[in-house]
């Protein structure tokens, strides 16, 4: 629920409960006031009737006397007075009445009387008043809510704009925040805090980026020198078999250090969000290119490759997607036995890469950890970063990577159905 709805909701809740509570109260109060009025009228009529009787005694002889004017009744005299006067509301068949039970005294005789007034007009009046009142209340309420909402929208606009700006902030671009002017202190504070935070994040990003670049340079350049020296050394005729073998070993070590360095720097770059570009990619095409690159290794190990491709689309970074799929495929080739099977299955929303092989020699949950290595007879040169990089890329782009060992196959499933926001 958003902020505006929340605020309006509590207003609405209060207003409607007040309305619901006030309708019956209003109805009963109005009605009671009207009844009181009617009662007064009845009292008055009783007095008039007494005066009327006094001046026209002849009427009494025609008892039981019904109606003087339709609603007044005088009954045959009784000996005992019937007690206090009282009012009564009669809900008759056709219409409700208000009645006054009383008596009149004349010539020492007591005549009970019932005087009544129809309430039908009163009920209509009360209903009319209440309905008008409700409509009026609703009108006021609706108007207030509407004004409130319009004002809130206007007042909160800088807030929403700031929020949008922060959401769109891209680390690698920095400094492109543009907040709108506002005279509300809290929003100004928010904008200032947003500025400071993003600026700091951007500076950290730049520093980290520079560090990675420098680290690459400082590591790779000496390695390049070492490689060059070794290549010059093997040109010498005097280099014997023993030294030659050691030169060879040194070259392999340099390759490993260089690859390790690259892997760690790549992890640092991914950590630092240096791969921002996200575009639709076609995993089938990417994998086919990678497979072509790895053809020699496939041939060398006599791998039996089964492939199935569908026209899936993956939202991702072109560089990292290539590395991700390449690492998975390389891993499968590396750990498949000589002449073993590797299965590639590209479907809509997911990719499966399987290779035959013995079960993992370590607990499954350590599979994607850095420097976790399996045992590969044919290619011992791995540095245990391949799957860690896969994991990191999946984390960054919200892909799900899962592993299971089923019927002598290591199976990696890459689920990319919930794509990253571009």
């Amino acid at each position, binding site marked *: 629920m958003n902020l505006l709805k929340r605020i309006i909701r509590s207003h609405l809740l209060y207003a409607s409960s007040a309305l619901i509570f006030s309708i019956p109260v209003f109805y009963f109060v109005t009605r009671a006031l009207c009844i009181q009025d009617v009662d007064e009228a009845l009292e008055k009529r009783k007095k008039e009737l007494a005066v009327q009787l006094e001046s026209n005694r002849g009427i009494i002889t025609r008892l039981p006397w019904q109606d003087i004017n339709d609603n007044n009744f005088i009954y045959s005299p009784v000996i005992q007075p019937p007690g206090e006067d009282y009012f009564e509301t009669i809900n008759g068949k056709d219409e409700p009445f208000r009645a006054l039970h009383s008596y009149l005294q004349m010539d020492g005789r007591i005549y009970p009387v019932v005087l009544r007034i129809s309430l039908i007009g009163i009920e209509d009046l009360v209903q009319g008043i209440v309905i008008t009142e409700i409509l009026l209340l609703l009108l006021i309420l609706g108007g207030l809510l509407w004004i409130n909402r319009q004002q809130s929208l206007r007042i909160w606009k800088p807030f929403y704009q700031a929020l949008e700006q922060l959401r769109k902030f891209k680390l690698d671009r920095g400094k492109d925040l543009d907040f709108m002017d506002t005279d509300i202190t809290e929003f100004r504070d928010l904008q200032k805090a947003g500025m400071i935070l993003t600026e700091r994040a951007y500076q950290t990003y730049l520093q980290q980026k520079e560090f990675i*670049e420098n680290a*690459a*340079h*400082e*590591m*790779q*350049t*000496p*390695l*390049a*020198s*070492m*490689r*060059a*020296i*070794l*290549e*010059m050394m*093997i*040109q010498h005729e005097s*280099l*014997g*078999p023993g030294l*030659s*073998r050691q*030169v*060879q070993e040194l*070259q*392999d070590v*340099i*390759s*490993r250090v*260089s*690859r390790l360095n*690259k892997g760690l720097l790549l992890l640092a*770059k991914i950590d630092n969000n240096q791969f921002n570009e996200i575009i639709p990619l076609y995993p089938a095409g990417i994998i086919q290119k990678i497979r072509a*690159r*790895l053809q*020699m*290794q496939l041939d*060398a190990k006599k791998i039996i490759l089964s492939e199935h491709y569908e026209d899936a689309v993956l939202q991702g970074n072109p*560089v990292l997607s290539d590395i991700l799929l*390449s690492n998975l495929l*390389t891993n499968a*080739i*590396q750990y498949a036995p000589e002449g073993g099977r590797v299965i590639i299955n590209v479907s809509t929303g997911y990719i499966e890469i399987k290779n035959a092989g013995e079960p993992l020699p370590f607990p499954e949950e350590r599979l994607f950890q850095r420097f976790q290595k399996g045992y590969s007879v*044919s*290619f011992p*040169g*791995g540095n245990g970063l391949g799957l860690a990089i896969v994991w990191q890329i999946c984390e960054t782009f919200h892909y799900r990577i899962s592993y299971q060992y089923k019927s002598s196959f290591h199976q990696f499933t890459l689920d990319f159905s919930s794509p990253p926001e571009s």
Partner: protein
Amino acid sequence: MKILVIEDEKTLRENITRYLQGEQYHCEIAVDYGSALEKLDLFDYDCILLDISLPGGSGLELLKIFRKNKKQDGLIIISARDSIDDKIKGLNLGADDYLAKPFHLAELEARIASVIRRKYSAVGNKMSFGDLSVDLQAKTVEIDTEILDLTPTEYDLLLFLMVNKNRVVSKNAIAVHLLGDDAEWLMQYDIIYAHIKNLRKKLSETGSPVYIRSRYGVGYKIELR
């Protein structure tokens, strides 16, 4: 052929010059931004090797100025930065090739040869060694007008050795050349040996004096018997 090596790391610079000078190349050096700018302004080269991180300025800046002055010399960036972005940036600025450190000198030599060939395309489509004649466009190898039947890998391998003729090329360099830096560790050296063996067999069947000599298992050298 004149080569300018712009590289601030002394050891690397010296070894590059020493390796290249053995052949038909004459190398000059520049150790920082200023001296490189001066040399680029005064002289023409067949190929320039340019490091990006230089004392006094960026190699990319140098490249920008260089290409703005309409200089058409071949240029290869040699950089420790290995990301695709850096490569694309370099190539867009007009570099002919981009080689990430640590590279092999044998690979560097092959890239230089390729850049120079492209520059002098009229004469650069043929290459020969002994009685071998390579048509670089058609990717075929002839001995006495007879085409040698080679697999693509064998062709690559032979060409790589020929470019680095008279020098020992390490197996490590061959693996990187054939597979690229990232997949090279997936290569067992006996696979290279298998390709070399096939190549030797095909060469000896023609009676050619060209021979691929093994150097104590560390590398191979193409020479004439």
